[in-house]
């Protein structure tokens, strides 16, 4: 089981994602200029400020050569996890519905939050039970999830809302307390909280590890 972690210029949480993934499998970086994914079994698009994010978060990174390969991989059913900036990039790339807007408070917010599992029937959350609460940090300026009403209704209907901030925990004003959504086929998950920063009680919490472990497990079964 090999995870590939995309590395754009300006990625910051790439090493953290590699460390987290290597707790449940092997992990290697995927340079932004790569045209293929070097045969990895799953892809993580990590957090950070790709290309400085001076335009709109993720708007430049989606055009990186490696993203074409990631899109093909996703279309073929490959598991892709987008964390924070990675979530923004995947939305910009059209691999996930909706968009991330500036936080309601207009400030960067770094905080440990409680995230509730809404759909436990995804390759990322299958080790969880609906209603489970995971303690995971958020840290972003642009994390307010938004989708038009009709899209939102579809997301609810299809179970694409995988994770919500627990009541009272929404740090950014996200619509419907949405913390993470999947693609229609369920093989792409984007979330604003950072599960790679919740893999060890020593550094705060180990609750995020279940997502990586589930990915490894899903592939082992496949």
């Amino acid at each position, binding site marked *: 089981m090999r995870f590939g972690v995309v590395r754009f*210029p*300006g*990625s*910051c*949480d790439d*090493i*953290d994602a590699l*460390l*987290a993934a*290597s*707790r449940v499998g092997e992990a290697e970086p995927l340079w932004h200029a790569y045209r293929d994914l070097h045969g990895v079994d799953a892809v993580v698009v990590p*957090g*950070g*400020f790709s*290309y*400085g*994010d*001076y335009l709109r978060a993720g708007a430049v990174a989606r055009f990186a050569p490696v993203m074409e390969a990631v899109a093909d991989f996703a279309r073929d059913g490959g598991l892709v996890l987008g964390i924070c900036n990675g979530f923004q990039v995947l939305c910009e790339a059209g691999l996930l519905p909706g968009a991330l807007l500036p936080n309601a*408070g207009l*400030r*960067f*917010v*770094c*905080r440990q939050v409680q995230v509730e599992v809404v759909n436990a029937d995804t390759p990322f959350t299958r080790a969880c039970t609906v209603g489970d609460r995971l303690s995971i*940090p958020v*840290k972003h*300026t642009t994390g307010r999830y938004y989708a038009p009403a009709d899209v939102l209704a579809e997301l609810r209907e299809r179970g694409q809302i995988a994770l919500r901030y627990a009541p009272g925990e929404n740090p950014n004003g996200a619509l419907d307390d949405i913390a993470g959504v999947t693609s229609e086929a369920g093989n792409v998950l984007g979330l604003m909280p*950072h599960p*790679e*920063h919740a893999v*060890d009680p*020593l*550094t*705060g919490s180990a609750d995020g590890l279940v997502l990586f472990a589930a990915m490894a497990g899903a592939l082992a079964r496949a």
Partner: protein
Amino acid sequence: MRSPVPDAARAVELGLTQAEYHRIVDALGREPNEVELACFSLLWSEHCSYKHSKRLLRSLPTEGPALVMGPGENAGVVDVGESLVCAFKVESHNHPSAVEPFQGAATGVGGILRDVFAVGARPVAVLDSLRFGDPRSERSRYLLDQAVAGIGHYGNSIGVPTIGGEVYFEAPYEQNCLVNAMCVGLAPADGLIRSAAAGPGNVLILLGASTGRDGIGGASVLASAELGEDDAAKRPSVQIGDPFEEKKLLECSLELLDRGLLVALQDLGAAGLTSAAAEMASKGGVGLDIHVDRVPLREPDLLPFEIMVSESQERMLCVAAPEDVDDVLSVCGRWETRATVIGEVTSSGHMRVLCDGAVVGDMPVAALVDDCPLYDLAPREPDLALYPAPPRRLHDEDPRAALLALLASENVASRAPLFEQYDCVVQSRTVRRPAQSDAAVLLLAPERAAEALSAGAPLPAIAASIDANGRRVACDPYRGTIEAVLECAANLACAGAEPLGLTNCLNFGNPEKPHIAWQLTESVRGLGDACRALGVPVVGGNVSLYNEGGEGPIYPTPVVGMVGRLPDARFAGRLGFADEDDLVALVGPFRPDLHGSELARLGGAELPRGLPELDVSAVVDALDAVRDSVRAGDLSSAHDVSDGGLAVALAECCLAGGIGASVVVDAAALTGGHDKALVALFGEGPGGVVVSGPPGALDRLAERVTVHRLGAVGGTSLQIEAGGSGLSVGLSELAEAYNALGALFP
């Protein structure tokens, strides 16, 4: 662009004195031209030359068992074990932040990060020390909001966690805010690089951003003069930060070092290319030829002197052997970092500036770097009080009201609304975040965490803290500075760390005034004595003088930053009470005194002249005992008594742990017979630590140090009995008061 004919009058305009100008003429044997005068005016500015502080700083201890690289390099370095070394430094960006707070603070962070990766260390943490005026003033709120956003913008974007800091609000900082940033980096023990240029024939390569007109004269115009009314006009002297450019520059520089492609590396900070090149040449005892026409520019018509002094950010200068240049350029290309060969190392001992083949400046390096006159200070203790008494805001002497007023004071209240704007977890090292422990704790090797934990092996870590207390230094520059150093050491001890080295940033007013010279002299004496008592070397630092506006000088504010080592992060200390029925005790030779305290400030008291005598070695012994106890895993919590005294410390332990406590304070025993509850509860001073733990742990501590057993952890309120009076406050009421700063960040 005006192109003045240089003469003594122009030199004075650039911040030099007449005498200094004549000294330059003597050194050159002729009148300097425009390029040369620009270079001299910057390198001989206070900011670059330390001409008013250098002699004083020589009195500081700079040797210690863990020392690897002391003052003089871009950052000090200590050995932290595990074949790793730690580089760290604190620097000010006060005047730029007072003029343009967002960019001033952001580029302050950018600059200190470059200092650390210039020695080959990867930045792993940023801490900051901030001072503003009254938060009820519009100007202070603007400065605070923008400075915090600027620090976050840079640190968050570049992927370096901001893990600690401190902020105070006092009237003397109203016009002249302080923004000091500290960076901590780690490198393999054999991975350091120095800044000395070497090897005539080697090539000088400029890395990073292009060069523009931003920040011209920043070191002399902004950093080495008092603030005035026309400061908005100085905004062009403030640089603009680009953390994305620096992120690439950082990764690129570290890869170049890792591949062994560099002979020397130096960041471009104050005075830009001039300072970087002169320092590299001076340290290597060589000369440099710099072709300014090869420097990539942001705008086409920069004059040679502007290119030499521009403070455009995100640039580094390196020296490489000619045969390695292609490899250097190729690594830079991969990181999309601009790299341009702009000159070469010579054996001339001169820094020559060339433009299109013509020599436009030619200066002996020694004259630039070593010939700057050093000035002795003329210290004199002032006869009258320098600072007016703060406005009275608390009229009630009831302990309960005092506790709530203190918790809600801007100098005590929770810093969460600030530090939540900083990423404190990136790089997966952060074992103790802000407000979890008195010092931040970072793993040395996060990649080994999983394996070590499952094997039950220790996980070595470092702890870092930054501290200062300008008001107490204003009361007594000598003892106040000692207190600041002891507080920093206490913060490390509460986390379980022993200090390895200290960096400092001395923020003072105009040293040419005798009373400021006295503050500075006394403060440095205190700094030296405290470091010697702790056995901790000063590994580097920064001096920021001329911090005064029309309303007078700032409080003298020596900021100290320390890095320490813990053998095992699993036993890193916490500040919050944890377990019901744990006993609570006050440990150490703490002698509370209300003079100069936060309560006295709220009561509108004049600053006292002098602080109580203190027994430094007794405090050091107490900190040793607390540290050993934390490391042994004996204690559930440890938190040093600081602003607001014992009662505030107890409340902070309750709030951090989400659990109450019930204590009885023997006011007479604590105050030496001075049986007044207010003094015992809210008096301040060094040497006190509130701990909690099982009875056996306190018994063991009591064998080494004074332990006042106070009570027990439990319940949902803080109940204190002292000197016949008592108070009880529920956790939610404590929390409401403590969250006062939230209103500043709606």
